[in-house]
């Protein structure tokens, strides 16, 4: 009788101990677990990344275990070519990163996980390996053009002029040979707004016989070269910008569809302003690529615009700017339509 009782008690104890042990023992084998850094992702409203600073040593692998706790998130390192990882809820992903150079790297979420998705940033502080010979110091990267030019990217930038009918870049191509050399320089493109360029070309005596519309066609041609850059820009726009700025650049993205001015947007950093309509010529024709670059790198402008500086590299920013201008200079098929009468240029703080 007593033996049976003790067997029964032993069984209950054993099963309970097994249940508790399996549930609470740390994951994986101890040797591995010590080296793996676990990084949990939650929607920003619920806390975002559970760590916003990770530490690594240059040249030494950083093993990460990425876990999404709610919806689909992504993980990528800014300004790096490595493709991002998708993090499905409940399906942990392991990855190993090795940074060749010390520095501060930004990691961020690549999936539109919610209205505050773009807030899901963190940094990886990579220190030099102890005892490593100090690396030859790189020449410091030049300041972005908008800072060199001292542009106030928060100021309104209404277009000084706009075409009566949407310009056609393809027609402008035939005029390329007549353009003065300065107008075809990269510097002129970067520092001029399309409207500014048009005004300057209008004052050129050599172009006096071209009509206003022909000049606009030429400007459109300058702004939409080369095509590969536009294509690269479109990809970035689709993954990073479209959710707010909308399919056609009209500022009607899905993240803002239900935006009402009465809602409290303090969580979005004070206020959230509907982005401008890029298809309105008075918006983009007044903005130089340098100005747009500033807006993209720094973000803000009193809107919910994120800062992309730590995420997009220079080429990517240049490409996305090229793509943006296609909203002002539509492709040949849609070009025949007359340009919409511009709205109120002053109301737009910026893209």
């Amino acid at each position, binding site marked *: 009788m007593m033996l049976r009782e003790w067997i*029964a008690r032993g069984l209950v104890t054993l099963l*309970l101990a097994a*249940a*508790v042990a399996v549930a609470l023992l740390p*994951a994986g084998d101890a040797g591995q677990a010590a080296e793996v850094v676990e990084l949990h992702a*939650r929607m920003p409203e619920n806390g975002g990344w559970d760590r916003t600073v990770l530490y690594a040593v240059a040249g030494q692998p950083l093993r990460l275990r990425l876990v999404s706790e709610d919806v689909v998130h992504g993980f990528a390192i800014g300004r790096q070519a490595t493709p991002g990882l998708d993090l499905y*809820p*409940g399906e942990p992903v392991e990855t190993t990163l090795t940074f060749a150079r010390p520095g501060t790297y930004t990691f961020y979420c690549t999936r539109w996980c919610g209205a505050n998705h773009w807030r899901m940033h963190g940094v990886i502080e990579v220190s030099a390996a102890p005892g490593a010979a100090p690396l030859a110091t790189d020449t410091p990267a030049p300041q972005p053009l908008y800072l060199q030019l001292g542009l106030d990217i928060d100021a309104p930038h209404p277009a000084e002029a706009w075409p009566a009918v949407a310009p056609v870049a393809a027609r402008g191509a035939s005029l390329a040979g007549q353009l003065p050399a300065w107008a075809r320089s990269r510097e002129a493109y970067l520092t001029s707004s399309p409207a500014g360029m048009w005004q300057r070309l209008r004052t050129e005596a050599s172009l006096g016989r071209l009509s206003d519309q022909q000049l606009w066609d030429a400007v459109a041609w300058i702004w939409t070269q080369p095509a590969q850059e536009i294509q690269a820009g479109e990809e970035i726009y689709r993954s990073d910008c479209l959710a707010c700025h909308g399919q056609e650049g009209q500022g009607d993205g899905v993240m803002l569809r239900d935006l009402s001015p009465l809602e409290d947007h303090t969580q979005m950093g004070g206020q959230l302003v509907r982005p401008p309509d890029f298809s309105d010529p008075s918006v983009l024709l007044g903005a130089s690529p340098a100005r747009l670059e500033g807006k993209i790198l720094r973000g803000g402008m009193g809107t919910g615009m994120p800062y992309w500086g730590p995420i997009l590299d220079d080429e990517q920013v240049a490409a996305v700017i090229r793509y943006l201008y296609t909203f002002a200079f539509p492709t040949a098929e849609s070009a025949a339509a007359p340009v919409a009468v511009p709205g109120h240029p002053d109301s737009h703080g910026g893209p």
Partner: protein
Amino acid sequence: MKASIPSSSGPAAAHTSRGWRRDLLRVPLAGVGLRSRWPQFLLRAITLAGFVFTILAGLFGPAVGSHNFAIIFVWIAWWSALKLVFIPLGGRAWCSVCPLPMPAEWLRRGGILSVRRPGPGAGRRWPRRLRGRWLQAAGFLGLGLASAVTLTSPRLTGWVLLAVLLLALVVGLLFERRAFCNYLCPIGGFTGLYAQAAPLELRVKDRRVCATHAEKTCYQVCPWGVYPLALQDNTACGLCMECVRACPLDNLALNLRPPGSDWQTPRRQAPGETFLSLAMLGSAAAYAAVFLGPWGGLKSAAYALGSWPWLAYAAGFLGLTVVTVPGLFVLFTAWSERYSGRGRPLGEALAGVGAALSPLGLAAWMAFTVSFALAKLGYVAAVLADPLGRGWNLLGARGWSWGAVDLAGVVPGMVIALLLAGLAGAGHMIAARTPGRRAAAPLLVFCLLYTLAMLWLLVG
């Protein structure tokens, strides 16, 4: 005596005054297994460990509901099994392996298999005022108020399960017999109610043998406080088999029987039971609306615990389950009673017809479960493979697929069949409990309206 049924079922089958019965205790292997304490003890030890594991998985496992063992096992696997298998086939069979009362019982009697201290009769009596199904109904409705969050939040599920385990322990240590199961367990209430449908019953074989047995050993050992001779239906019996093990005269049987046998003979139903039955009808409809309905706003409100929209939802939920559905039934019963010409007080009339709601409620809950849970069974493999979200793939279960069964095509048919069967059962019982068609009509209208509402909610 129903002589028309062919008696081809062997020596253990019998035709009593209640119809066909076959005693499972006389089936050689089953009989040994049911009498021995070991199989049941092992199952209970496993369910207890499983319960503790589930609590821990809920509290510390993945925060994503569809990947958390606690959510999937409690609300999809167990909850569905309870309503689709245990209750319709085994009545209170789940109660016979449920771990909840065991820790207190083992502690109180100082042993698991051997008993050193006074048995189940020890402890305080449960207060008379708190008897009946009222607290169980309240508990079930209380869970319903937070159901949207509980069903999706592993943490809350973990806390709820832990609270239930502790409550069962404390109540079990303080009060006699299975006070928690009898008066508090939110599941026990409707399990007992719908167990009447099951094709399984524990009953005495020969009433005369009991009448002459003065010791009443069965009653002394019954953890539920049931005297088997007095059993008229399955509601109170937890199928623990203690009476079978204790009876010196071998006068107990675990019978297979035609389903719904308890519903054949009209009996008075306690008001608490009728209320529970009506609350179950109301909550099946509410759950169907919240979880399967097309109303996003309702879902959000049910989810936003503590907010104003949630308060409105809570008021609506309680209004439906406590006021509207019971109120309508009282109204229709009063109407029926006017036509019956019997002139009974309303309470008596309700006690007489209340039982007819059981097939309706059981069918509604089964139909809801079929709609709600079948499509989610695929998650079970995933949480079996990786119950703690550690990236495991135990038994290679991650790859298991339910894809072979096209459930979407089968579900509406099953739902309609279940609801119609429930309506037919209710109609049959109403006919047996009312004098004439005019008296039956209002109650039939009530059942028809409810069935149509459920059809609308579940099938559209």
